[in-house]
Every structure is written in C-alpha cells, then in structure tokens.
C-alpha cells in the first residue's frame, strides 16, 4: 500500500485562484452585457481583442520564458476584460491590443507574473493608452440605445463633448444610474456594476470595505466641494474602479486597516483630481497612486501578535 504522506491540512478550502478569478469574470458579466447592449458590435470586438490579446500574450511569454503555463488561472482574462470595459466605444482595435500586451508583459510578467505586479495591469495599461493616444482615449460616445432612459440623446457614433463629469448639472440621476450617458463601454451602467459587486460580496471574493469606503469618501468630498454627492458617485469610472479595480488583491494592502486607509486615499485622490486636476476623471490615477502606496502600508501597519509582551514591544 502506497499512502500519501504530508503535513496538514489534508483537505483545503474549495476556492482556489482559478475559482476566484472565475468569480470576478462572472461578476463582470452584467457590465459586459450592458456594454454590448449600449455599444453593440463595437463593444464585442473591443472585448474579444482585449481578452484574446491578454491571454495569448501571457501564454506566449510563459512559453518563451520556459515557465509553467498558467493561463488557466484566468487572471489574464480578467485583466483583458477589465481593460476592455475601460475603453471608449470607438477606439481602433489596435488600442485594446497594445493595451493588453502592455498590461500582461510589461506590468505583470516583467515583475514576476501573477501576484508580483505592483500596479493593477489593466489600469496601468489604460493610463499608458491615455497619455499616448489621448485623442482616441478621451472621446466618449453616446450609447446606441437607452435603458429606462429619460430624454437622453442617442445616436450611432454620436460624439459627446466629453464625459458627463464636465456637465454634471444637465444629466439626470436615472440616466447616470442606468447608463444612458457617454463613457467607457463598461463603466456607464451602474446597475450592472452593482449587481456584480453584490455577487462578489455574496461569494466572499472581496469584502465591503474598499468599495464602500472609497465611494463614501468621494461622496463626502464632493459634498464638501459643493457638488451633488450622488451624481459624483454615479459619474465616470468611479463605481467600476471601486468595485473591480481598487479591490484587486495583488495591489491592495493585506490588513483590514490597510484596506481602510487605501480606500480613503483612493477616494480622496479621485475627488481632488476631479475638482482641481486637468483631467475630467481621476479614478485610474487615484487607484494607481494608491497601488504604489500599498507596499508602504503593508510595511508600516503591524498587528499586535498574540502573546506579545509589552516590555518587549
């Protein structure tokens, strides 16, 4: 009889990396569906190119670097999908292609692969695309059709002046919530994002602290700046960022207290950039900045170890 021998634990929790990433993909389904509803075939193509480029570049890299092929952990697919949802509808398809390759090769693999990147790959790629091709990246388009809409204008390829952040007074809350506004394809329908958030919370993939504290901070700051906090929360990429990108395990602190500080920092930066910055939208840079602060928070925050005696402390 050949028995296996190991230390404990002999049975493990069900959720492994692949399952967690699959849960994130499932949670992104409503937002993905909404993006296709609002932007049609353009959204489909962006998503396909982005996800395929992310997964393929990870595969090729791991093959060439003689590393174990781990695309089945689905993390590259998550990166590709998140990047796609953060792009406007009319970008040329080489934009998601370059973005995904940059996210996977430069941001993720060059730093050691999954778990070792210090920036969220999708956001870092978006930031690079934004600074490299601002003409493509800053245009926002009105959706093809509306969802429970008020009299918001729709039209094929209608170029809106910019994101509604520049004209907050004129958009109704209902349109902001359901997505009858111009913006990146996956960020406009707040209903879809919130359904995804509820799924992530129920499945315990993430906990409530980061999204709630980040969004709460933005609401509070907007109120302090004299803006409508509800519209501030429902505008731009805040909810998509707070629910799906600020909660990325790899680039957020390990401790709960760290989560709180990180989330307040993210919210504060969003509010400051929106109020005082040149960009209309600050979610990408706010989260990336706090990604950089994460290792410092991990180092600075210490819990009291059980049994630590005061005189030794």
């Amino acid at each position, binding site marked *: *009889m*050949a*028995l*296996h*021998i*190991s*230390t*404990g*634990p*002999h*049975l*493990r*929790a*069900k*959720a*492994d*990396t692949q*399952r*967690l990433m699959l849960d994130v993909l499932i949670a992104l389904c409503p937002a993905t569906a909404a993006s296709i509803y609002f932007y049609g075939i353009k959204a489909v193509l962006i998503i396909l190119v982005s996800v395929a480029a992310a997964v393929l570049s990870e595969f090729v890299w791991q093959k060439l670097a003689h590393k174990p092929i*781990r695309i089945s*952990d689905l*993390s590259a697919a998550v990166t590709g999908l998140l990047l796609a949802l953060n792009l406007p509808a009319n970008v040329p398809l080489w934009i998601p292609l370059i973005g995904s390759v940059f996210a996977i090769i430069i941001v993720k693999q060059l730093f*050691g*692969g*999954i*778990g*070792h990147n210090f920036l969220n790959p999708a956001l870092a790629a978006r930031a690079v695309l934004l600074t490299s091709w601002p003409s493509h990246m800053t245009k926002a388009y009105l959706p093809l059709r509306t969802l429970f809409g008020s009299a918001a204008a729709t039209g094929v390829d209608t170029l809106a002046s910019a994101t509604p952040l520049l004209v907050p007074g004129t958009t109704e809350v209902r349109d902001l919530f359901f997505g009858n506004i111009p913006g990146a394809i996956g960020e406009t329908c707040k209903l879809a994002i919130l359904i995804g958030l509820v799924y992530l919370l129920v499945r315990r993939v993430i906990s409530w602290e980061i999204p709630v504290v980040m969004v709460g901070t933005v609401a509070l700051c907007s109120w302090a700046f004299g803006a409508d906090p509800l519209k501030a929360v429902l505008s731009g990429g805040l909810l998509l960022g707070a629910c799906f990108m600020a909660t990325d*395990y*790899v*680039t*957020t*602190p*390990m*401790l*709960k207290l760290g989560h709180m500080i990180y989330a307040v920092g993210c919210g504060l930066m969003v509010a400051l950039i929106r109020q005082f910055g040149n960009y209309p939208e600050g979610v990408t840079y706010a989260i990336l900045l706090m990604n950089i602060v994460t290792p410092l928070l991990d180092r600075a925050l210490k*819990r*009291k*170890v*059980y*049994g*630590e*005696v005061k005189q*030794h402390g």
Partner: protein
Amino acid sequence: MKKTFPGGVHPLPSQHQGKPLTNDKAIRPFVSDVVCIPMNMHIAAAPSKPIVKKGDHVLMGQLIAEAVGPRGVPVHASVSGTVKDIGMVQQLGKTTSQCITIENDFNDEWVELKGLGNVENCDADQIIPAIQAAGIIGMGGAGFPTHFKLQVPPEKKVDTIILNGAECETFLNADHRLMLEQPVRVVDGLRAAMRAAHVERGYIAIEDNKKDAIAAIESAAKGRKGVQVVTLKAKYPQGAEKQIIKAVTHREVPSGGLPADAGCIVLNVGTAAAIADAVIDGKPLVERVTTVTGRVREPDNLLLRVGTIFLDAIGACGGYTVEEPGKIIAGGTMTGICAPNDTVSMTKTTNGIVVLDQQEATSLDESSCIRCGRCVEVCPMHLDPYRLKNLCDANQLKEAKDQHIMDCILCSSCSYICPARRWIMSSIKNARELIAQRGI
C-alpha cells in the same frame, strides 16, 4: 454568550466539518486479537522502559513499562494475554518505536486496582501520584504528561483549569460523544485536577455545535464546586491551547511561555475522564474513544484499547470503501499526522482515524501568492503567514524569527484557506526545525 478568539476558519463548510458522519454514533467498544503498544506515546520525556519479557502472561492494567525520569509515564497492558514480542516497529513517528505486542486472551482479567475513592473527599496530595501511576498524558493529541502539567510552581499563580471540549478539528466526535455519554466522569476528572493543582476555578469549554454535550455537561456540573460550562463559537482552532485560554479568560499566553504563565492549565476532556478513572478506581489509561471515519463503510466512535492496530479499527468499521486508500490520518484533516501504513498502532493520543481516497490525498500544486490576504485574516496568532512563507522559501531564517515564526501554533488555517494552495504551514514547520538545529 458565545466566547471566541479573533481569526480562524470554518473548515469544510459543505461537509459540516465532516462531523455528521459520526456525531450521532454512540461509543462502541471494540477489542482486537492483538495490541502493539509503543513506549513513546508521550512527549517531553524519555520512552518508557519495558519490564516484561516475551512469553510473560500479563493482566489487563498491569504495569508493562516503567516511567523514565520525573516527567516519564508508565505504560500498562491494555488487554490480558501473552507478551508476544518486544521490538522496534514503524509507528506514526519519523523513526521506529519500541513496542510491546500482546496477544489477547479475551478474558479481560484485570490486575487488582486500588483507587482513592470520591474525588471531593480523597487526599488531594495523592491525586497527582495517582495520575502519574495511571500513565495519563494529554489525550487531545499532544501527549504531554498530565501529572507534570498539574505540578505548577506556586510562583506561576495558576488559578484556572480549562477543560477543552472544543473539538474543533474536522471529522472528530470522540470528545463530543464522551461528554454526551459520560459527563460525570469528565466533571469528576476536572474536580480532581482542580483539587490536585489547588485551583478554585474550573471551566468546561465546548463549541456551540455540540448543544447536546453542553446540556449533558451542564447538568453533570450542577452543584459542583467552582465548575462552570462555557459555550464557545464553533470555529477552528478554537481548541488550540492559546486560543481557548484567550476565549475563556481573555488572557494571552506570553510569547514563548506556557499556559501557566497566563494562570491556566488546559486539559482535554478525555484526559479528565481518564483522571477520574485513575483517582476514583485506580484504573490506568488503557483505552480511549477514537472516531474512525472518512472512506470507511460504517464510520463510528470506537472505544479502543491502547495499541490497537489501525487496520483492526478500520475493519471494525466495515473496512475501506475504496480499493486503495490515499491517506490515513491520525487525527483530523487540519493537523492530523499521516500514517505510513495501516498497521501502525493507535496510542493514548489518537482521537481519530480519518481515511481519504486517492483524489482527496493528491497534493495540490503550489502557485504564486496572489496577496488575497486570507491567511492574514485567519491567522489566530496575528502573524503574516504569507510573509513568513516567503522568508522561509528564501531561507531567510533570521528574518523569519524576527517576524515571530516561533509564535506560530502550526494550526494550518493559512494553508487551508490559501487559494494559491501554498504549503505555508509546512514551510514554517520546516524552517522552525532548521532554526532549532542551527541555533539561530
């Protein structure tokens, strides 16, 4: 009010910790043809020294090996019969152990026993010698000599004894059934230990998933001096010594210290029952309740003689349900020890035998840490398991020591919850052995 500690996990939620397989199975005695009794069932002292020879006829409860040194523990025959062999046998440990094999004559003829009588009235100074003479060790798994545990130096100011009835390990119901079926023995044992250690306060701490056991112990404890039942939240590792002390008394054992440094002694409920037998009847520890479960036909809670071969116990439960078992675990699936084969013996500390199939037993591939923070969240000692794992893998033992690696209680919660399937606890355990070897 339910008491608990911060951190921890709820293992195997879909199987309810594996407990339903046996939690309603009454304790059933089983006696095998032969027992093979190891001399090193205890820790913290040299192995016991055999005083019988091959061919000797022994009675049940007869002393067959004497204690070595002040912490040492004697061993008694768990069946009546003939000594068949004394020799080295592969057991659960890394090396072989000296064992006495006795062929059972099924007469169950006991040696003459002389107890101290009622635990409340007997001479308190005679209790610890009686416990030592009965060969009692910690039956929750560790096997620390109980007589030595109860001899606390007066400067430690021990004022509390906690009976550990948490049984937070997966699959096991041995303590649960014992508390439910024999609550008076458990309470008697606690009172004897309290009198022996001159302690006024005794708690029996039980997880809230054993409501029937709580009720049984509560009624048995009614009117007993200084005894209180504490309901604990069902969570792993609620029954770990440091965590149960924290939950019950809100005290913490100082780093590197012993429970006595927090004014506590923690005893397993099975140990308490054995103490009651030793004090009241003078009966040595020769049998215990063991849950035999997992991939066996009829999972059960067996009352087994010390030295029963695993295969005999598994046979008493209808044998394997799989052609080839993958793993046989002495204990639960969180911290249990893997048996090298199914012919090893159960000892005074074997609270469970869990059989896993091939698929369950297959090791999972370790992948990169995704920094999800789950290990940090569940660590009941508030360590950073992910960081310790990285330091261990990089062989940075000095840094690992500075990061409190020695405070780890090896509960496995971090490895259990890790989505990257990292062997965190194993690495910590190995690193600690290296630290001890190299004197870092």
